[in-house]
């Protein structure tokens, strides 16, 4: 599977590392080269500096051949916009978006974007731990 990941923070780097060791073809995008320090030395994928909101950068990252696109930058709106470009301009078969704001996540889910809110999920985990 070919996957493009936008954002090489802790989550992006971890996901890239796992997929890479599974043998998937991974490209990670970040606007800051320093973020790539989070990738392990034996990482076989591609680390590309650039803004994932730019169609040219996305093309360079191989989005036209990608099976999946994941947006995990710190900015909800950046993630939302990148995912919509991936979905509507490049017709990527699977697009997953991180949206911290639960209300915004709900709205974009109804607009057909597969969106995950870590806020809700983590709050749920904490609640379950406290109540068990």
């Amino acid at each position, binding site marked *: 599977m070919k996957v493009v990941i936008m954002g090489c923070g802790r989550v992006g780097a971890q996901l890239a590392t796992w997929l890479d060791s599974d043998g998937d073809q991974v490209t990670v995008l970040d606007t800051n080269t320093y973020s790539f320090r989070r990738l392990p030395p034996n990482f076989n994928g591609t680390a590309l500096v650039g803004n994932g*909101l*730019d169609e040219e950068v996305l093309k360079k990252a191989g989005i036209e051949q990608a099976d999946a696109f994941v947006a995990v930058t710190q*900015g909800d709106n950046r993630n939302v*916009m990148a995912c*919509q470009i991936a979905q*509507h301009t490049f017709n990527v078969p699977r697009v997953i978006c991180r949206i911290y704001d639960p*209300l*915004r996540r709900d709205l974009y889910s109804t*607009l057909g974007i597969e969106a995950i809110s870590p806020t809700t999920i983590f709050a749920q985990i904490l609640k379950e731990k406290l109540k068990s």
Partner: protein
Amino acid sequence: MYIIVVGGGRVGYYLTKALLDEGHEILIIEKEAPICENIVAEMGSICVRGDGCETATLTEVGTGRADMLVAVTGDDEDNLVACQIAKHKFNVPRTIARVRNPKNEVIFKKLGIDATVSSTNIILEHIEEEVPTHPLTHLLTIRDKGLEIVEVKIPPESTTIGKPVKELSLPAESKLSLLLRKEGKPVVPTANTILQAEDQIIAVTTPESEEALRTALRGG
């Protein structure tokens, strides 16, 4: 009309002033407290501090009854999301987004934003107009019809000087609308109008035929 402006920076500030003068009800949503305070001090309590992409803020300012939302922050992604939430969650009839990267205009349109304004493109067009040797100047874009109004200047060395309009191989999608000369009134060019050096021609064209129009009017 009740109009919500997202972003109280320079664009938001002057836009609000202009819209208030026209008698509209305006509300600005601005993230930064100092900017918000300045606006309130000058124009009264028309600025709410908050994030225009957050449903709670939009609910608080009564977005449900807004006739229009204009997002003019400096970030394209924020403008997109503010407009999409206004449109899909609050059914605001008209949303307008400022776009800084001209490349984003297409995707914004595709995602249902009613109108986009690209500040970069507007600046480019105006500078283009001021370059005296520029062969073709964009004057206006008629978006709904996919047409534009352009101006073509005929330089003294053009091979088309002295020829009547009917002998020019004008593209079918272009129409010559007006001819301006140093002397005399503006005229509507006809098939027998003869081109002269320094003529300024205003024409309607599709963006695709722009190049062909320029070549037809000025010669190869």
